[in-house]
C-alpha cells in the first residue's frame, strides 16, 4: 500500500519569494502535477496503480484559489523565461552542456504549464476527484491546518479533525474514510475523536505498533545529541497486517520501516545518490539547478547534471526497491503472514521537489510492481476488516519517535502561545451573535487561530530552517487574533476596524464555506 501525504502551509498572499508562495508553486510544478500526470499516463497504458493520497485541507483551499491558479501560471512563465535566457546565455558562451540543461528546464516548465492549463483546466482538485471516482485513487484527509495533534488541547484538536472532514466533504462530495495524522503524531485517545468523525482508519509509524527503535525520518538541522530517543518495548506485533485499535471500532496501518528507510535515510537512501540533481546549489542568475549531488559531503566540487544518467539511476533504484519489496514479502511469509501488507508512507513533496528524479522512480516502481507476480498494490478498502487488535504507543515519525521535533527547548514558548490563542478564541466566540459583522470577525479570528496551530512553524523553528519567516507568521497571526479580540470585547467596531478586517479577510482567505463556528 502506497500512501502519499501532501501538505504546504498557508502561504497565499504571505510573501512570494524567497519564502512564501514560491513553496507552493514549486511543489505544484515539481511534484503534484508531474505525479498526477505520470499516473494518468500509467492508467492510459492500462496499468493498475492504486494509491492513497492525503491532501491537507489548507493545501486544497490554496489549489482552489483563483488567485493561486493565476499566479502559478505566471510563476511557470517566469521560469520558462529564465530557462530560455539561461539557454541563450550559455549558448553564447559555448557552454553546451549547461545550455542543454537549461533547455531541459524550459521544456519541463512548458509542459507543466500546458498540463496545468489544458489537461487540468487549472483545477487540480477536479482532477484528483475524478481519479478518486474512477476508483484508483483513495483520497484521505488530515488536520485542517496540519496541527501537531498530540500536544494540542482538546477543543482545538477536535476542531482540526472536524474541519479536516468538512473541507474534504466540500470538495469530494462524500465523507472521508481515512485520516492522516500529521507527522504520524498519535496519542491514546486520538482514535476516539477520529471515530466520532466517522473515520474508518488511520496511519502510525511502525514503532507505534511493533515497539523497538523508531526510524526517525527527519534529521536536518537538529542536534542529535540533545534528543532523547525513546525505546519502546517490543510488542511482538508486526506492521505486516492492519489492526483494530484495541476495543475500538477503527483500523490502523503501521508504516513499514524497511521501505521507509530506503527512501528517507540520509546515509543510504536513494535520493542522496551522486547522480541525482543537487537540491541546494542553484544558479545565481536564474535560480535553476545545474548540478548533480556528486558527493554529498563536498559542497564546492559539484559536477554538471546529466538527466539521462540520473534517469538510468532512478530506474536502477526502482528495480532495487521492488526486488527488496519482494524479498521482504517473502521473509514475512516465512514468518507466517499469508499475505503480508507492506505500507510505504511518504511526504508527496519528496518526489520531484526534494528528490527531482523521485517522480520517475515512483512511476518505475509502480510499473515493476504491476509486472511482479509477487506484489499487489492495494487501497485501504481492499483490506477488509482487521481481525487482530493492537494497543498503540504514543508516537510520531519524527526523530526520537515521539514529540521532540515539535516540542523542545526551541519551541516550548510557541506551545504556550498556541494554548493562549485557543483560550482567547473561546472568549471571542462568546461575542458571536446575530450581527453578520460580528460573525465575520469571529470567523476571521478562527482562521488566525487555525494558522497559529500549523505544525509547520514549530518544525521550522526547531530545525532552524527559514526560522524568521515562521516566527514572523506565528506572531503576526497571533497579533491579528488579539486585535480582533480586543475590538469585539470592547465593542469597538468602528470603520477603521471594519476596513482593517476586510484587509485581513483578503490576506488570510480560506475555509470560506462558512460552516457554523463551533
Amino acid at each position: 500500500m502506497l500512501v502519499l501525504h501532501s501538505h504546504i502551509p498557508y502561504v497565499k498572499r504571505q510573501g512570494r519569494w524567497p519564502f512564501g508562495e514560491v513553496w507552493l508553486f514549486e511543489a505544484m510544478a515539481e511534484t503534484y502535477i508531474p505525479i498526477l500526470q505520470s499516473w494518468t499516463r500509467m492508467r492510459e497504458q492500462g496499468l493498475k496503480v492504486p494509491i492513497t493520497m492525503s491532501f491537507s485541507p489548507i493545501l486544497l483551499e490554496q489549489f482552489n484559489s483563483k488567485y493561486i491558479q493565476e499566479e502559478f501560471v505566471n510563476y511557470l512563465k517566469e521560469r520558462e523565461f529564465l530557462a530560455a535566457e539561461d539557454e541563450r546565455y550559455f549558448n553564447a558562451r559555448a557552454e553546451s552542456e549547461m545550455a542543454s540543461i537549461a533547455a531541459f528546464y524550459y521544456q519541463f516548465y512548458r509542459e507543466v504549464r500546458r498540463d496545468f492549463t489544458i489537461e487540468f483546466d487549472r483545477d487540480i482538485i477536479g482532477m484528483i476527484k475524478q481519479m478518486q471516482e474512477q476508483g484508483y485513487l483513495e483520497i484521505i484527509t488530515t488536520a485542517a491546518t496540519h496541527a501537531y495533534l498530540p500536544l494540542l488541547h482538546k477543543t482545538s484538536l477536535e476542531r482540526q479533525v472536524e474541519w479536516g472532514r468538512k473541507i474534504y466533504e466540500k470538495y469530494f462530495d462524500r465523507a472521508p474514510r481515512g485520516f492522516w495524522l500529521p507527522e504520524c503524531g498519535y496519542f491514546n485517545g486520538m482514535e476516539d475523536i477520529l471515530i466520532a468523525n466517522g473515520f474508518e482508519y488511520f496511519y502510525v509509524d511502525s514503532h507505534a505498533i511493533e515497539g523497538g527503535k523508531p526510524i526517525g525520518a527527519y534529521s536536518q538541522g537538529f542536534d542529535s545529541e540533545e534528543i532523547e530517543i525513546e525505546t519502546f518495548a517490543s510488542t511482538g506485533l508486526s506492521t505486516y497486517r492492519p489492526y483494530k485499535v484495541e476495543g475500538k471500532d477503527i483500523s490502523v496501518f503501521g508504516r513499514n520501516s524497511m521501505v521507509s528507510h530506503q527512501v528517507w535515510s540520509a546515509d543510504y537512501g536513494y535520493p542522496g545518490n551522486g547522480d541525482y540533481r543537487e537540491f541546494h546549489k542553484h544558479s545565481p542568475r536564474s535560480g535553476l539547478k545545474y548540478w548533480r549531488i556528486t558527493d554529498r559531503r563536498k559542497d564546492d566540487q559539484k559536477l554538471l547534471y546529466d538527466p539521462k544518467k540520473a534517469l538510468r539511476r532512478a530506474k536502477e533504484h526502482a528495480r532495487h526497491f521492488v526486488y527488496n519489496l519482494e524479498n521482504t514479502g517473502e521473509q514475512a511469509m516465512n514468518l507466517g503472514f499469508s499475505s503480508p501488507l507492506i505500507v510505504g508512507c511518504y511526504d508527496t513533496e519528496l518526489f520531484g521537489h526534494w528528490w527531482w528524479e523521485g517522480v520517475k522512480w515512483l512511476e518505475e516502481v509502480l510499473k515493476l510492481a504491476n509486472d511482479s507476480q509477487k506484489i499487489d498494490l492495494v487501497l485501504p478498502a481492499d483490506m477488509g476488516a482487521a481481525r487482530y487488535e493492537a494497543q498503540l504507543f504514543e508516537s510520531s515519525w519524527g526523530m526520537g519517535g515521539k514529540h521532540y521535533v515539535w516540542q523542545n527547548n526551541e519551541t516550548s514558548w510557541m506551545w504556550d502561545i498556541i494554548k493562549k490563542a485557543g483560550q482567547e478564541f473561546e472568549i471571542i466566540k462568546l461575542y458571536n451573535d446575530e450581527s453578520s459583522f460580528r460573525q465575520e470577525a469571529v470567523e476571521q479570528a478562527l482562521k488566525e487561530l487555525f494558522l497559529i496551530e500549523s505544525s509547520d512553524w514549530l518544525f521550522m523553528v526547531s530545525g532552524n530552517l527559514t526560522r524568521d519567516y515562521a516566527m514572523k507568521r506565528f506572531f503576526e497571526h497571533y497579533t491579528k487574533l488579539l486585535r480582533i479580540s480586543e475590538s469585539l470585547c470592547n465593542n469597538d467596531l468602528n470603520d477603521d476596524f471594519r476596513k482593517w478586517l476586510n484587509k485581513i479577510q483578503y490576506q488570510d482567505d480560506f475555509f470560506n464555506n462558512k460552516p457554523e463556528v463551533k
Partner: protein
Amino acid sequence: MKVLIFSWEYPPHMVGGLGQHVFDLSRFLARKQIAVHIITPRVKGSPDYQADNGVYIHRVGSPAKDEGNFKSWTFTFNSEAIREAVRISASIGGFDIVHAHDWLVAYAGRSVAKIFEIPLVTTIHATEHGRNLGLHNRMQNEINEIEKNLALEAQKIICCSKYMKEEICSLFGTSKGNVKIIPNGVDPDLFINLPDKPKFKIADNDKVVFFIGRLVPEKGVWHLIKAFPQVLYKVPDAKLYIGGKGPMKYTLDKLALELDIADRIFYTGFLKEDMRNYLYHKAKVAVFPSLYEPFGIVALEAMATNTPVIVGDVGGLAEIVQDGVNGLKVKAGSIDELAKAIIKLLSDADVASSLVQNGCNTIKNIYSWDAIAESTIDVYQQALKKRQKFVS
C-alpha cells in the same frame, strides 16, 4: 504624536546601558509633548503601570531571568508585549509610531507595526556580531538573523555612531539613507546625587583608577589588569576599582593573582547610581579600554563628572574622544600604551585638568538629551512620511 516603545530594559531593570538610554530618551520626548508608552518586562517591586510626566510605563510578563531558557523567555515576553500593545492601542485610539530597541523586542515591534499599519523605527544599540567579535554558535547566528530582519523591516534605523552605521550597513545590507546617527547623551544632573553613607570609603588623595562595565572580553578589562603592574611600578599607591559584574570575573581574579596585584584591585560589584557617582567623583582617572564599543556612554559619564578619561581607540569611543583634547586614546588591546596613559594622568595634574574642562564642554554642546530628543522626533516624522508614500 503617540509613540509605543518596546524595551527589554527600563529602570529599575538595568543590565547594560539600554535601560538608562530608554529612560532618558522617553522623559525628554515627553517634555516635547510626545505621549510615550513603554512596554517592558515586569520587575519585582515595581508597579505594572506607572505614569510619570507624560511617560507611561507598562510592565508585562515575568521578570527577566539570567538562568534558564533565555530565548524562550524572550519570545514569551514578546507575545505578552504584543497583547499589551493591542490593549493600549485600543484604549488610546492607536499609536503613530512603534519604536523597538534591540533584537530582544524585534518580533513584538515588527508584528505590531505590521498589523496596525504604523511605521517601525528601531534603535540598534549593538550587534551580536560586534558583541562577540564574530558569530561563533547557533544562538549568535540566530540573534544576528533577528537583528538583520528587524533592520530590514524598519522604516528607519537609529544608531549612535558612524562606526555602528558602517557596521549595520555592511552586516545587514541596509541602505545608508535609512540609518540615522543620533549619539547617546548624558544628563549631568543625574550624576550629582552622592550616597549619605557610602558602602565603602575612599580617601580624597587615593590614586583611584576606575573602570565600570560588564566583565566581558569586549570591554578590555583583562588588558587593564594586565597593564596595572606597570602603573604600580611608577605610581606605587595606585588602586584599581572595578565596577560591574560578568562572566569573566574568575579569569580576572586568576590573572590578578598571577601578577601578584590582587591586593591593589577592588571589585565593587554592581554599582547603584549614588555609589557610581561617588566612584566617578573620587576617581583620578576613568579607563575604558574596550575592544568593541558601539557608542561608549561611559566616556560621557566620566566627562559629566569631571573625571579625566582614557579610552580604547575603537567604535563610538573613538568618535567621542579627541585624543589630548577631551580625553586620551590608546590603541585597542595595547597594554603598554594603556599603562603609559594612566601613569600620565596620575602624575600630570595640568593635562588632567585641561581634559576635564574640554570634556565638560563636549557634554554641554553635543551630547545633551534635549538635542537627542529633537533628532529622534525628526526621525519619527521621516518614518511617517516614508510610510505615507509607501501606502499611496
